[in-house]
């Protein structure tokens, strides 16, 4: 209710008719589900029902500013949900909190309420951080509406790259609530903090929404930006309370703690009412059994949407790219908006549209004048669009958390709602729809950061030294600050004098530090189609060799580009648009050596450990693989310098005797390891909310004596290190085959430590992934592309992978 003030008013004043209407709609949803189930049962791989929940209401807190009280009532809000009240109490008590409640549960009021109250009563200031500009603007719009309703006079402004120069001063000096993003804080505000002196002196609240997006490299940077922010606040004598809000992940409290460096009170129980929710997992039917090709997710989504609209149900469709939004919109409009004289029933909503267009669409949605909206993640949260009955996801959004956020768009209060996740042919999608368990119970997704990653930490020590001289004995992060400053002194950028370290270089360090990468070696991807010269993406140094070699097909927002030229020294890849019907897969030879083992567990026969490794990677060539059929349609050579990396890794190892007991020979055992590694890699990405290139994988032994890889013309080509005799390893006791998953960043970003904690789950889920896959001998959705000839050889790579996985699985729950 609090989250949707417009509608809330209508609901409060017309609760009865709403209830009557709700039960009708509820029945419609149930009927729709029955019809779908009757017709498409085989396509539904999972179904779950989330029971309805009654709202838990609490009166406004005593002492709430009268103007704010009035504003809320004017917006139709007469009481709070229990979690909003809980947040109020904790925040007013000076505790930092993390709020984890579902989409549309009035999350923003949890922080807006205390912030506005304190702005009105004590002129306290607040800083809001959102990961994107669009979200910032929505937030300001919402505050302004409340402001207007109660004539509060609280000044809320966005401050980002689009803020005009002459408006900036007003924001700095008059803003009660300044809404910005981490990059702007890092590059535009902290290094100029003296201009913000008044603001920092009175800063009492820092709100960090979408906390779950601050994970991995980005999150590690964010933690350091917050260290800098707190340091500046100390200088101005303020100690703000931090309010995090997050989508549902497995470890919100831990993540908030890691980001802030102090304990944070979690608020996890939503008091918002919720209707019954049905969730269907949907796999498109196989249309070519020989090639294993499935119908497109788009065809399925439009089919279900047609059903829903014809049943009179308001529907939202989420697509993962802007292009797909347009394609789906055209299709739906062809069906429902072919008569130009009638008002449109279908509308698109995505980033890139003008704010006015978006506001108009939002209003139409709230007023119920549009029956179907097709959106990107831009509509995932924040914006109030009223209640919808059906939510269709065209493809898995990449994380379970984002899936729930999107599904949260359908259903309110007393109504039944339906969400359908329609899988694409992507391996991860295929995996997800076969595992309904991911959606049951607690979130499987962990977000971890590594704020003391040395390069990231050093970047921010630099920035912090620029902002304020460090003092001897001060602390910043987990490494000895004196040593780090000593390093910078040798570089000539700081100068130690008395007990202070002063910045003395003619440079502005924040400009060279990107919050989304490690160090400065990033590549830019430049689109040169039709004589253009436009930067369309950035690629981390560590993943460049694997993704943007000459000839590679590089995907941006699900559209393919081909790399024409790679300027390694200049860190540039020149690409053009392509219609290629294949994708490319790099063939890497990775030699890995264990330098240090931190932790260790398991049986003597099969064990798991994590620690520090050194690896040398050579990208030798690439395969061209046709979409859908996954057949190899060509190879290319790549000539790039070897890459070396010290990083952290987690590894699973099986002793030769155990292998020999289940495999006829060690060559097939290696095939099994390669397949198992592929599946474990997929699962590891899912559980740690990582992109595939964040984590590397390798199969070899621990001494870099040999390693295995999938070669262009066969699986498991083994290449011993120069001078080592391969045959020696194929017999005897020296063969310690190992699966490695490593942080694909120099120095690591904390992923491996987390994967070690999740080690049993990874093996277990990988087993499920492979055994539940409908293919016969293996496919890219489970153990990676296999050769057409495997079957004739009378050998099943899939079976081999499963054997390895069962060896790796700890006996207690085998």
């Amino acid at each position, binding site marked *: 209710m609090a989250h949707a003030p417009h509608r809330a008013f209508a609901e409060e004043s017309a609760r009865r008719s709403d209830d009557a209407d709700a039960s009708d709609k509820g029945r419609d949803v149930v009927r729709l589900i029955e019809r779908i189930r009757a017709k498409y049962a085989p396509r539904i791989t999972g179904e779950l029902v989330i029971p309805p929940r009654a709202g838990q209401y609490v009166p406004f807190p005593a002492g709430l500013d009268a103007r704010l009280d009035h504003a809320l009532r004017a917006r139709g809000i007469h009481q709070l949900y229990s979690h909003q009240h809980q947040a109020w109490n904790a925040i007013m008590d000076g505790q930092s909190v993390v709020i984890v409640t579902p989409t549309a549960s009035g999350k923003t009021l949890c922080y807006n309420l205390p912030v506005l109250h304190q702005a009105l009563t004590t002129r306290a200031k607040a800083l809001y951080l959102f990961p994107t500009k669009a979200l910032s603007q929505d937030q300001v719009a919402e505050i302004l509406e409340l402001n207007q309703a109660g004539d509060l006079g609280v000044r809320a402004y966005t401050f980002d790259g689009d803020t005009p120069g002459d408006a900036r001063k007003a924001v700095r000096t008059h803003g009660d609530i300044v809404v910005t993003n981490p990059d702007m804080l890092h590059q535009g505000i902290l*290094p100029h903090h003296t201009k913000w002196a008044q603001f920092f002196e009175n800063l009492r609240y820092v709100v960090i929404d979408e906390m779950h997006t601050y994970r991995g490299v980005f999150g590690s940077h964010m933690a350091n930006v917050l260290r800098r922010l707190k340091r500046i606040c100390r200088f101005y004598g303020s100690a703000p309370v931090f309010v995090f809000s997050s989508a549902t992940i497995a470890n919100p409290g831990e993540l908030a703690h890691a980001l802030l460096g102090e304990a944070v009170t979690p608020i996890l129980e939503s008091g918002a009412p919720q209707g019954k929710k049905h969730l269907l997992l949907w796999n498109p039917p196989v249309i070519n059994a020989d090639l294993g090709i499935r119908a497109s997710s788009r065809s399925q989504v439009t089919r279900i949407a047609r059903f829903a609209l014809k049943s009179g149900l308001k529907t939202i469709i989420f697509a993962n790219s802007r292009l797909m939004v347009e394609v789906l919109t055209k299709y739906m409009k062809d069906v429902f908006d072919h008569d130009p004289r009638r008002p449109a029933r279908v509308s698109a909503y995505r980033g890139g549209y003008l704010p006015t267009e978006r506001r108009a669409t939002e209003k139409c949605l709230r007023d119920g004048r549009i029956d179907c909206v097709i959106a990107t993640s831009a509509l995932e949260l924040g914006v109030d669009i009223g209640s919808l009955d059906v939510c269709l996801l065209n493809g898995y959004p990449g994380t379970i958390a984002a899936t729930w956020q999107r599904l949260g768009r359908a259903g309110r209060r007393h109504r039944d709602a339906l969400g359908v996740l329609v899988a694409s042919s992507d391996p991860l999608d295929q995996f997800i729809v076969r595992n309904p368990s991911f959606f049951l119970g607690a979130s499987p997704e962990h977000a971890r950061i590594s704020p003391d990653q040395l390069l990231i930490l050093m970047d921010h020590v630099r920035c912090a030294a620029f902002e304020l001289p460090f003092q001897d004995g001060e602390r910043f992060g987990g490494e000895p600050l004196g040593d780090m400053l000593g390093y910078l002194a040798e570089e000539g950028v700081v100068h130690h004098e008395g007990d202070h370290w002063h910045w003395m270089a*003619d440079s502005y360090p924040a400009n060279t530090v990107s919050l989304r990468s490690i160090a400065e070696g990033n590549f830019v991807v430049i689109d040169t189609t039709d004589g253009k010269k436009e930067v369309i993406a950035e690629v981390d140094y560590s993943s460049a060799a694997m993704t943007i070699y000459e000839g590679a097909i590089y995907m941006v927002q699900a559209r393919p580009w081909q790399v024409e030229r790679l300027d390694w020294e200049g860190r540039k890849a020149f690409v053009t648009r392509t219609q290629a019907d294949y994708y490319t897969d790099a063939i890497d030879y990775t030699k890995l050596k264990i330098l240090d083992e931190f932790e260790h567990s398991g049986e003597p026969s099969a064990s798991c450990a994590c620690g520090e490794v050194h690896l040398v990677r050579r990208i030798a060539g690439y395969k061209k693989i046709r979409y859908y059929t996954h057949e190899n349609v060509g190879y290319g050579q790549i000539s790039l310098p070897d890459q070396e990396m010290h990083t952290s890794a987690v590894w699973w190892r099986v002793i030769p005797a155990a292998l020999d007991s289940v495999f006829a020979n060690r060559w097939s055992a290696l095939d099994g390891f390669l397949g198992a590694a592929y599946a474990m890699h997929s699962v590891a990405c899912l559980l740690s909310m990582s992109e595939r290139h964040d984590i590397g994988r390798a199969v070899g032994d621990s001494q870099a004596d040999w390693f295995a890889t999938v070669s262009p013309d066969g699986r498991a080509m083994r290449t011993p290190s120069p001078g080592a005799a391969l045959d020696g390893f194929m017999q005897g006791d020296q063969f310690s085959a190992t699966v490695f998953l490593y942080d694909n960043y120099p120095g690591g970003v904390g992923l491996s430590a987390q994967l070690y904690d999740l080690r049993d789950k990874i093996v277990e889920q990988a087993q499920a992934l492979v055994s539940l896959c409908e293919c016969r001998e293996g496919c890219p959705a489970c153990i990676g592309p296999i050769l057409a000839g495997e079957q004739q050889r009378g050998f099943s790579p899939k079976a081999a992978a499963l054997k390895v996985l069962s060896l790796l699985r700890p006996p207690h729950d085998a």
Partner: protein
Amino acid sequence: MNLKRRITLLRTQSGHADGAPSAAAPPQPSFKERVEQLRRPENPRTPMAACERDTALAQRLNGRLVADGLIEVDDVFPLAHAHGHRPLARLLDAPLGTLAPGGASDPEGLLLVDTETTGLAGGTGTIAFLLGLGRIERAGLRVRQLFLTRFSGEGALLARALEWFQAANTIVSFNGKCFDLPLLATRYRLHRMQAPFQPLGHLDLLHATRRLFSKSWADCRLRTAEERFLGFIRTDDLPGHLVPVAWSAFLRTGDLRSIPAVLEHNRWDIVSLAALAAELAHLYGSATHPEADLVAVARQKIASGRLQEAAEHLNGHGGRLTTPAWQLLANEYRRQGRHAQAMAIWEALAARGSNEAMEDLAKHHEHVRKDYARALDYTRALLEQAPGEARHGQRQARLMAKARRAGLLPK
């Protein structure tokens, strides 16, 4: 592995150019320099030694150590001193009010300000290690330079500068609005002191210079203005980009060889500010310069309401070049309702073939004097020049109708 090796290794592996310190780092001292530095007695190892070093440096600079880490150097340039072509005394009778409309000021109220900084990056990490101030006193132009021998002297520097700021009413700088003053404001803020600029006017000579010379000069740097406008050529000047290098070398190794040159560089900046303020004011007054933009001068006069002067100025430099300025002046007269003056200008311009003036005359005769016949004459002449121009056609039709109604033309 120690921290330094770990960092170097990881930087190499993450694609940093060479894993070595970044390109922004100043040149490292050579081995020889490092040995010398260790031998050099003035390299401070103790506070006492530092103090001795600073005292020695102060003497060398003809200044005195006024606080820990702060040397103050005073110089006086008699007003008869010629900086380039002209004596500084020109400042005394310069019409300073012409430089900034409304901001008239006597020369004694001016405070010349220029800083030398550790860089141009801005933000809180840039420090002014030398603050040069100048003001006119009975004895002449007094230049006061506050030089840091250590970071720790900054508080004293800022505090000592207060007195000069408080005694002034207008700051004179060259690009100080964008650079020097915001930077000083940041420094005051970091030292939790109130910056003293709030009540002061600010004359940024860069803007005045740009208005007058940007059409003739490739750039409008202070050095260019000195050479082409003041006729002042610096010899053995320390190039600007070496100024921060000199100070950081001094801090790190105690090498003070370049410090006198840094102070001289800054001192000339201050003297040039005085001379430039004087000459620009005179130029806006009545002086001339072959490279100055006369239109800009006229515009400045018009903007400050000195129309008579503007007319005289334009008369003095008659010729086609000034047509836009005349036009501007005529418009200003019209705006003020001084139609006779405006018309006189338009007629002169029209005689020289200005279509714009003819159109103004047509409007004037139509709307102000209601002399439709004259207005028609001008409109016809305009239509001869530009037969297809719709607005002239429309005016002609409208004028014909008005003329008919007035009985000037047969119905």
